[in-house]
């Protein structure tokens, strides 16, 4: 019978193309707005490394100006980044099994002579200590990261993003090949899978929704090559900085520091170390602000930095309200259409159709309508997200990573489509099934 119901549904929908188009559009718009809002909200609100949320902590210390806080709007917070010397001291404490100090740099990546003519690319690099990959569970397609010894060497090794590996090596296993970054050759030791943590929790001060960097090199190159930061560098007092060495000794903050602490005891030891370290620095004239040495987990870190604005949940609520309005309109139109055709339903009942059969016939029509609406809704959502990327995605706005429909968004979309189909079709189909056929036959 489903084939028969489907045939009747297509004829019925074709009979009133205007109303059909209106209903499809209403469902599609409702779904599209919801999917777009949910995708952006999900990107903005999720913790991309939730499974290690209770082990990963960023370290912040308030080495800022004694006269004013680092951020006037959030005076309780220390600066988000650390000075060179503080970062070095914290990561060399020996307490956390894994510790990372890092920053963002930029340079031109180009093929060596063995690779052939491939267009060079200016890329962002993450200059980091070795634990970055293991600490953040970064997935590798080929090879892996480097050992700690490579940081101090430093060794000329490099990890490429999947995109850069595609660009320079056609996606092949490039481990062991060489590639140039600025004027120096590096040996490829690892290629990442597509990895796109959103928000980019480990460096929210430099574009919380930026794409991850395209290459990764050992931290030792920072000093050796005098690599300047391509991220934010914040300084609070005038200092005579004539050289890179001067800059590294300055009170400017620009390095992100993360530690992995497996349990409460480790966390307490780390906190004690920080307090002790700061107390020592305070005696030498630094850290003149109130003691504010923090270990902050990922969730708290995202909240402290207001990565999720207050507007986002409100927008999601509004999007669902809009979907509800669209659905109510569709239900109204469907009901009017079905009741307008009540005589035919009365005839079908007289000829032997049961209430259940009438219900199923009309539910099929509503389901078909909603399915077309859902497909169009997904297409519109894709177009909408693409449009948002075109309009807003740039390193300045930091929205590049948000507008991808991921598995989560897709699951929500499918659930929305099915739910919408049921919601829009159930009541009108039930209502028409309850009609007393004699009433409508009598009116003829």
């Amino acid at each position, binding site marked *: 019978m489903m084939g028969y119901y489907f045939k009747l549904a297509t004829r019925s929908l074709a009979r009133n193309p205007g109303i059909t188009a209106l209903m499809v559009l209403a469902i599609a718009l409702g779904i599209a707005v919801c999917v777009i809002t949910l995708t952006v909200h999900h990107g903005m609100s999720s913790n991309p490394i939730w499974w290690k949320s209770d082990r990963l902590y960023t370290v912040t210390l308030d080495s800022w100006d004694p006269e004013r806080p680092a951020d006037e709007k959030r005076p309780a917070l220390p600066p988000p980044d650390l000075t060179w010397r503080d970062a070095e001291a914290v990561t060399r404490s020996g307490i956390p099994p894994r510790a990372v100090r890092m920053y963002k740099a930029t340079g031109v990546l180009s093929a060596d002579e063995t690779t052939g003519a491939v267009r060079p690319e200016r890329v962002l690099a993450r200059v980091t200590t070795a634990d970055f990959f293991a600490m953040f569970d970064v997935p590798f397609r080929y090879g892996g990261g480097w050992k700690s010894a490579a940081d101090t060497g430093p060794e000329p090794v490099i990890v490429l993003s999947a995109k850069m590996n595609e660009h320079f090596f056609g996606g092949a296993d490039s481990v062991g090949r060489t590639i140039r970054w600025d004027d120096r050759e590096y040996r490829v030791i690892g290629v990442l899978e597509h990895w796109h943590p959103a928000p980019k929790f480990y460096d929210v001060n430099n574009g919380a929704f930026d794409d991850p960097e395209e290459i990764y090199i050992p931290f030792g190159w920072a000093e050796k090559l005098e690599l300047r930061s391509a991220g934010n560098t914040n300084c609070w007092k005038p200092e005579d900085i004539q050289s890179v060495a001067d800059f590294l000794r300055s009170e400017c903050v620009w390095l992100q520091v993360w530690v992995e602490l497996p349990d409460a005891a480790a966390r307490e030891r780390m906190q004690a170390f920080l307090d002790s370290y700061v107390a020592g620095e305070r005696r030498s004239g630094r850290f003149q602000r109130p003691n504010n040495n923090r270990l902050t987990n990922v969730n708290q870190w995202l909240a402290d930095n207001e990565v999720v604005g207050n507007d986002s949940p409100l927008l999601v609520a509004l999007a669902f309200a809009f979907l509800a309005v669209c659905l109510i309109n569709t239900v109204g139109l469907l009901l009017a259409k079905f009741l307008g055709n009540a005589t035919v339903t009365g005839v079908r009942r007289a000829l032997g159709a049961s209430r259940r059969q009438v219900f199923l016939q009309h539910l099929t029509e509503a389901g078909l309508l909603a399915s077309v609406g859902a497909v169009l809704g997904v297409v519109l959502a894709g177009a909408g997200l693409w449009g948002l990327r075109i309009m807003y995605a740039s390193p300045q706005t930091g929205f590049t990573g948000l507008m991808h429909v991921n598995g989560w968004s897709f699951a929500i979309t499918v659930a929305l489509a099915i739910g919408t189909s049921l919601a829009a079709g159930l009541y009108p189909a039930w209502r028409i099934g309850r009609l007393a056929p004699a009433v409508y*036959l009598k009116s003829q």
Partner: protein
Amino acid sequence: MLAMRHISKVFRTDLIETHALRDFSLDVAAGDFVAVTGPSGSGKTTFLNVAGLLEGFDTGTYQLDGVDTGDLSDDARSRLRNGKIGFIFQSFNLIPDLDIFDNVDVPLRYRRMKAAERRERITSALDLVGLVSRAHHMPSQLSGGQQQRVAIARAIAGDPKFLLADEPTGNLDSLMARQVMDLLEQINEMGTTIVLVTHDPELARRAQRNVQIIDGQVSDYRPYEPHAHATREQAPLAAGASA
């Protein structure tokens, strides 16, 4: 075939109660051709809806072909209606989206017949009403008389035992009305029981038996007596003379 005993049917609104049928009893034997007449508002259509299982009733009993219809579920009533009853309406009530073939197909679809058997029955029914060549026309392309013949084909395609016709010639001119009546008589001769509701005494005279409904009751009800039944040739001319 049809046995109604002391049926009552009341329509209630907030303000009034309308007794459409009261203590209504009627027997129709298998093979009968019964004409039901009566003034407007007398309860003819309500009787037809109750007989056709389109409406329930408040009190009494109704047996259709030996099945007590009183406590049947909607599914069971629909199956019984689909299997045993054919409907013919005054305004034909063909489904405008479907062509003639698909219109006749409707009751067979709900019987879940195989496609080949449905095709055979549809062709045979359309053949009987002389419209096989119009099988793929739309209803709007046919005259009123042709549409009513399609409706008859639809009613008989499932080979029901019982045909309910509500003013089947009411929207037709006299020539077409006669053709439709000829067709109904032909179907009756093939063994189908027919109950015809009509205002037209001329048509009523062509039935084997006339029943008059007044104020929701059969005006001169007598329990069914097979030997007392007239054949069509002996049918009385006066409405209500044989009940």
